[in-house]
């Protein structure tokens, strides 16, 4: 029977043969829980008891929860500061690293190293950096030049940027590598032609390099946005004694979900938050793709 199939039909049979396992896997591990989470968001459940129907109660509760709006704002702060800043820094580094021959490989490795490091380890090291005198590196340095102490992690205004810094740093290596690949793919003759035409470096950067890097930029923006919207491990590990503190000033959505689900065991409420996060991620990604898409 197989032998009587056309070449195209045989290819389809084989393709589905190989796809069957991942499809099954995804259905069980991804789609079923996703559907279930959406269902739970309309129910009350404490993980052990029976589920009871709650309708839109969880969403209404969420809408009226001041902590949620605080957390929602925090999440967007991570996104709106983190993504542009990391994009800018990684581009500047990649742009200059690309023109450098001396120690090129070594420097690239240095920038990539944080990306390979465990976020937990990194968060704890940075947490130590931020401690007050005589433990913390930064405050020691400040003290040695006569500047007063800065409460990095214990201040409601400083804590979020202080946590964002290592998160940006951790992602730089990856973004630099992607940017460098993008820069390398621009033909040298484009720059030579521009040199003969005599335009300045700013024109070259603004009208040749950046437009041609657009696909790279789209990729990095979408990837880094998703990363910042889902930020968790840096926050959790740097504020373990009071996760998301002080006064929820660093708490992102994922941490709130975690707390609601596994400290309060309010699964329905946590699921509602998850659905909101999912929607935000989807909308942000779609909007970015649309804005940055080629006309």
């Amino acid at each position, binding site marked *: 029977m197989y032998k009587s199939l056309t070449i195209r039909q045989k290819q389809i049979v084989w393709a589905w043969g190989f796809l069957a396992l991942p499809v099954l896997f995804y259905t069980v591990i991804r789609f079923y829980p996703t559907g279930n989470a959406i269902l739970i968001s309309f129910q009350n459940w404490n993980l052990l008891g029976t589920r009871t129907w709650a309708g839109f109660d969880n969403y209404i509760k969420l809408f009226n929860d001041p902590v949620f709006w605080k957390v929602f704002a925090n999440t967007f702060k991570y996104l709106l500061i983190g993504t542009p800043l990391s994009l800018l820094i990684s581009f500047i580094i990649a742009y200059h690293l690309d023109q450098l021959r001396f120690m090129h490989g070594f420097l690239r490795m240095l920038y990539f190293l944080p990306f390979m490091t465990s976020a937990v380890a990194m968060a704890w090291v940075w947490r130590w950096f931020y401690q007050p005198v005589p433990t913390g590196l930064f405050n020691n340095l400040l003290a040695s030049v006569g500047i007063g102490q800065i409460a990095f992690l214990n201040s409601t205004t400083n804590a979020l940027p202080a946590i964002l810094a290592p998160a940006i740093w951790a992602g730089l290596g990856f973004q630099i590598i992607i940017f460098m690949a993008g820069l390398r793919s621009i033909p040298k*003759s*484009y720059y030579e*032609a*521009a040199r003969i*035409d*005599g335009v300045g470096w700013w*024109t070259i950067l603004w009208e*040749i390099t950046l437009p041609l890097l*657009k696909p790279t930029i789209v990729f990095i923006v979408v990837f880094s946005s998703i990363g910042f919207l889902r930020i968790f491990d840096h926050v959790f590990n740097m504020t373990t004694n009071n996760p998301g503190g002080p006064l929820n000033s660093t708490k992102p959505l994922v941490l709130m979900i975690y707390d609601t689900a596994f400290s309060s065991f309010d699964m329905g409420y946590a699921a509602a938050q998850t659905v909101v996060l999912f929607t935000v991620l989807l909308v942000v990604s779609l909007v970015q793709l649309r804005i940055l898409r080629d006309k």
Partner: protein
Amino acid sequence: MATLALRNLVKRYDKTEVLHGIDLEVADGEFVVFVGPSGCGKSTTLRMIAGLEEVTQGTIEIGGRVVNNLEPKDRDIAMVFQNYAIYPHMTVRKNIGFGLRTAKMTKLEKSARLEEVAAILDMTDLLERKPSQLSGGQRQRVAIGRAMVRDPAVFLFDEPLSNLDAQLRTQMRLEIKKLHQRVGNTIVFVTHDQVEAMTMADRIVIMKDGHIQQVGTPAEVYHSPANAFVARFIGAPSMNMLPATAKDGAISIAGGAPLDLARAPDGVLNVGVRPDDLVLTGGVPILTGRVTVQEPLGNETLIYVDAGAQAGGEVIAKADGRTPPAVGSTVTLHADPGALHLFDATTGVTIR
């Protein structure tokens, strides 16, 4: 418009010398083609003229002015690149206009100049298109257009036709030649294709290993090549080279019967004969061999003749297109003694 002069031009990368002192004078409005195998230094020379590579030693003069230390933009040149270097995200208008970015002209003058160039290149209708919507030949024209708007003293072309298919290449070759006749700028054109060089050039510069082998008109380099390299490089198929010995004004080619040739000096030498000149009848018999392959070209057929080890293997000859000798048959090839080129066996220099 301007003259161009290269004087003792040397290029070294670290310790490797790739150009060993190039001397060349290009007249105002002349179309000069640099040709040679890859790695011969022709592109390097062009890029040095453009200012994209530094001059190690010697001088480059454009319009009588030494430009060694001038930025490319100040040299009054324009260049067309092998991959065109037209920007995919800009329209044809912006691409061509890019060459005018730094020109001291009003906006109106710039757009008038742009329209004028577009009209010359017959692409007024294409100005709002993106490069991705253009064919290979049209992209090539955009690249030429961008060079033309600058109205440079010297046009530099770096193998601009090698990305085109054979038919389009022939067409663009003609277009560039016509363009040159029309605008009359000095052109330096680099190619590895000897046909391009022959068909387009006023003068051809043949290069090998960083040395100029010969400079001359297409007819000169074809009919009186300076050495065996030029002789074999120019003309397709390549000139046959046959080992020979000469004594007392008689020459024995590939161990054959002596043939009177007064200009041949005594000793071992190489005899070159173009396939076009090696025919079945007419002239004097040169050698005999078995036909191994036929290549019909329509009005004529190229035949590959196995002339034996003494002749260095296979030679190519020309036969009639209608009645070529059959594969496997034995033929005697003839040539006019005047069509034989003599080369020194060791140096390869032409013996006249």
